[in-house]
């Protein structure tokens, strides 16, 4: 007998489990199918474990480089117990994943482990170690996510040739790592591996890191810091292949038409992620997928099949957990008959490098392209912020872009300490249609990094206090 539900969510990542909980809150009999782990990539092999590693190595770095200046003396060297670090990291993931399990149970969502495949638009099969079941539902939400892109000649074994998944599980500190791809995943991992003492070579095909991902000024700050820390960066470089050598691996790199060899023990390939639009037998349900593998969806995240929705990475860019969660709530509410559409002005993006980069809204170039010809731009370095100085983390700045005519905030780009936390204020300000005066006139607590937001708003208006600004022409 086939089990029947009102709503079945395929995939329990940050989109899927959130959709399932919201659907259950709205009174639907809901199930979530997950083939691997609750919480998906984010909680298990993505956001959360990488942040655990980044936090630990950041502390290590501070202890090594800042403590002495601060008068905090450590006798002897600080050593890293990599096994314990990985164990701790895993405990963080397990705690989070267990939390999702509790939530699903608490809301009465049925969790079905296994791999889902559509039979038609009303039925799926779920294959697990226990066998195969058929499940029927009035509505399906496809939240199958994405997976790392493999490049020719670098087949993942997740031991030596790794995606982020393998890299997050290293239980010894690798001596030399070649990182193919200078995007945010590659650089986050590079940052913390370098802090552990690994020799890191970043092989980037473009002429800059994080190209097209973040504001170029922000990327430069991180680039400088990586270089200063001793990360070797190759620009305009293409990884052609690899072979096992006597000690480790040799990666062949084509750079300016010439071939070079990068010696390493581990290879990390982080050239991007691709949507899982080729999985779950979407065709059987008649779900349309575009040429890049994204499921085609409308503003309500409905696919071309009326009773099937898609959210998260598989439903289009940006492939970010918080976008997926937002869509999860949205879709559950649409199914319950509410008039909702995806209507966010901005999806913030965060890169957990050292220092962190975070942005919301438009870059300067995007604003111009949208027809905002006259802009107000303010930039305040963290060096002018008391809290940043006291933290010994003064690299970076906040940049704000506003429409000169209305003073309405268009974009905020932050590189610096706690950029990931500071950006939330910018998101709220942009969604609320704040003007620069709104931010400048809101009293921010002192001494905090957040003061720099107020100060940057003042800077766009030409009267920041803690930097010297030439008076703006009237």
């Amino acid at each position, binding site marked *: 007998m086939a089990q029947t539900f*009102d709503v079945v969510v395929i995939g329990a990542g940050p989109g899927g489990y959130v959709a399932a909980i919201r659907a259950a809150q*709205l*009174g*639907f*009999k809901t199930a979530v199918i997950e083939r691997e782990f609750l919480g998906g990539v984010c909680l298990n092999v993505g956001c959360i474990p990488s942040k655990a590693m980044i936090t630990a190595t950041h502390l290590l770095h501070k202890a090594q480089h800042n403590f002495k200046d601060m008068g905090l003396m450590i006798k002897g060297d600080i050593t890293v117990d990599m096994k314990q670090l990985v164990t701790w990291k895993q405990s963080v993931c397990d*705690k989070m994943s267990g939390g999702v399990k*509790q939530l699903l*149970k*608490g809301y*009465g969502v049925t969790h079905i482990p296994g791999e889902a495949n559509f039979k038609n638009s009303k039925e799926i099969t779920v294959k697990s170690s226990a066998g195969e079941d058929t499940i029927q539902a*009035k*509505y399906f939400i496809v939240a199958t996510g994405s997976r790392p892109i493999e490049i020719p000649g670098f087949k993942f074994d997740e031991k030596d040739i790794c995606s982020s998944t393998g890299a997050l599980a290293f239980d010894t500190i690798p001596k030399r790592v070649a990182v193919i791809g200078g995007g945010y995943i590659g650089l986050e991992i590079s940052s913390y591996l370098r802090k552990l003492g690994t020799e890191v070579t970043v092989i980037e095909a473009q002429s800059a890191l994080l190209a097209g991902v973040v504001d170029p000024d922000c990327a430069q700050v991180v680039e400088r810091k990586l270089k200063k820390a001793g990360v070797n960066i190759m620009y305009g470089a293409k990884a052609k292949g690899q072979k096992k050598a006597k000690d480790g691996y040799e990666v062949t790199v084509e750079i300016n038409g010439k071939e070079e060899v990068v010696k390493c023990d581990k290879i990390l390939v982080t050239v991007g992620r691709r949507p899982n639009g080729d999985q779950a037998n979407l065709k059987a349900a008649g779900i349309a997928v575009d040429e890049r593998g994204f499921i085609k969806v409308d*503003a*309500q995240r409905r696919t071309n099949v009326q009773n099937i929705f898609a959210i998260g990475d598989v439903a289009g860019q940006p492939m970010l957990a918080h976008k997926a969660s937002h869509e999860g709530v949205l879709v559950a509410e*649409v*199914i*319950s*008959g*509410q*008039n*909702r*559409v*995806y*209507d*966010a*002005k*901005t999806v913030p993006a965060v890169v957990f490098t050292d220092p962190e980069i975070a942005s919301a809204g438009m870059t300067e170039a995007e604003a111009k392209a949208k027809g905002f010809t006259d802009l107000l731009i303010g930039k305040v370095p963290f060096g002018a912020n008391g809290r940043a100085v006291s933290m010994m983390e003064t690299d970076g700045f906040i940049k704000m872009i506003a429409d000169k005519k*209305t*003073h*309405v905030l268009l974009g905020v780009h932050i590189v610096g300490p706690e950029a990931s936390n500071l950006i939330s204020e910018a998101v709220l300000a942009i*969604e*609320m*249609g704040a*003007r620069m005066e709104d931010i400048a006139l809101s009293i921010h607590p002192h001494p905090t990094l957040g003061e720099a937001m107020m100060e940057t708003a003042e800077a766009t208006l030409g009267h920041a206090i803690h930097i010297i600004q030439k008076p703006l022409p009237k």
Partner: protein
Amino acid sequence: MATEVKLPELGEGVTEGELVKWLVKPGDSVKADQPIAEVLTDKATVEVPSPVAGTVKDLKFKAGDVVKVGSTMITLEGGASAAASAPASKPAAPTASAPAPQAAKPAAGGGKVQDIKLPELGEGVTEGELVKWLVKPGDSVKADQAIAEVLTDKATVEVPTPVAGVVKDLKFKTGEVVKVGSTMITLEGGAGAAPSAPAAQPPAGAQREVPASAHANFAAAHSAQSSSAATAAAHPAPGAIFPPVADSKVLATPATRRLAREMGVDINSLGGTGLAGRVTREDVLSAKGGAPAQAKAPASAPGMSIPKPAYQGPAGAAEERVPLIGIRKKIAENMQRSKHVIPHFTIMDEAKVDAMVAMRESLKEHAEKHGTKITYLPIVMKALIATIREFPMFNASIDDAAGEIVYKKYFNLGFAADTPNGLVVPVIKNADQKTILEISKEILDLSKRARDGKLKPDEMKGATITVTNIGSIGGTYATPVINHPEVAILGMYKIDEKPVIKDGQLKAIKVMNYTMTADHRLIDGAVAARFLAAFIARIENPGKLLVELV
């Protein structure tokens, strides 16, 4: 005697835990302090002890269920006597002393304390405004004695107490809104005195069963709820789905964007009145004709943002402040809502009423034989109905939320009645199917009961159009306010004599003024003028009514 063992406080901030394992089963004897279950909270598993000894009767949860602190986990039989051997071993063992704490407060009079709740006041009535207390603390009340006056819709009802007792305290102040089911007063010593009022309060034990059985029903309720939700969802909203506006140049907060979508307002078409051209919540509301309604809310839904200006008088002592409550408050709200929603306009004219006066004179005797008297109002009502048949929009309503005009094929005529408490509007239902004599009788009855404050809420509901008769008091013309959601109100004024020149001779004729105030959203000025002319033609020649009689 059965004792209920509840999940005790497990730590600061912990409100629930997951039941991992039962350590006892029904039929087991347990000693005081013996663990009965393992409960997982915030990653720590704790053993829950039974504060008393007894025999396990039943287990209220299954392993895996989430149990809230304070929920009954098991019931023990023979617990009370056995418990004597384990007194106060746990400070938090209120269960050892059996009765529920809330019911156990010993009353001064030694009797039970009872909560007297606001009963159901009528279909669809969920709350009322407390107008006046008829008792005070310390008063002895009898069963069925009125304890308070509560205003619902437009009728004031007296709330009786189902049981006798001594009033302990009053839970509300006059002017406050009381929900049906809220406790209004507590009575002491009520139990013995009220044998005639059973089950005003369920016994404490029964009440305490509620959490457990509610939980047992959770699964069933949940699936029932889910199937209804799914049915609702099977018909996705047919209304337009507006595209995202975040990308457009329109500035509006996320909540305002959502509101516009829910109300079916295209936010891109609005000019923002906020700073830097922001579209505000008010812009969206006024774009929708001021009706704030959710998709299916009634047209007169509460929540309209009506300004509340303060009044600061110059001389405190020479002014007296009394609360704006009761019928006066209700009238104020209704008038304000009507004026806020409806663009009013009034048209006025004069009718020669000699024929009508003569007709009424000639019918007086006939009416008296039938035990009533005839006024002009029922005749006017008949003329009004006949005219509405020609102009049906005068008997309509606008459903702002749905964006629809509702034409009503029935005739419920309201008439504004002046009472000592203020204006009320009783309704003659299906007036088109009643004779003038029947309507006359009904008007007399309703007016009398209106003056006595004895109208039932239903008798003031559902009017399709209203007549107001100011003539008996004075004034030549007025601009009455429409009783929203009606769209028109007919005003009639006093009969006067007026000189006219007819066939070269000065003559006195009887005239009566009429006004028609209409909702300009639906009714154009010319239409109202034609309506009033057609109406007056009937008044001037009552014989027409006879001809039109079905």
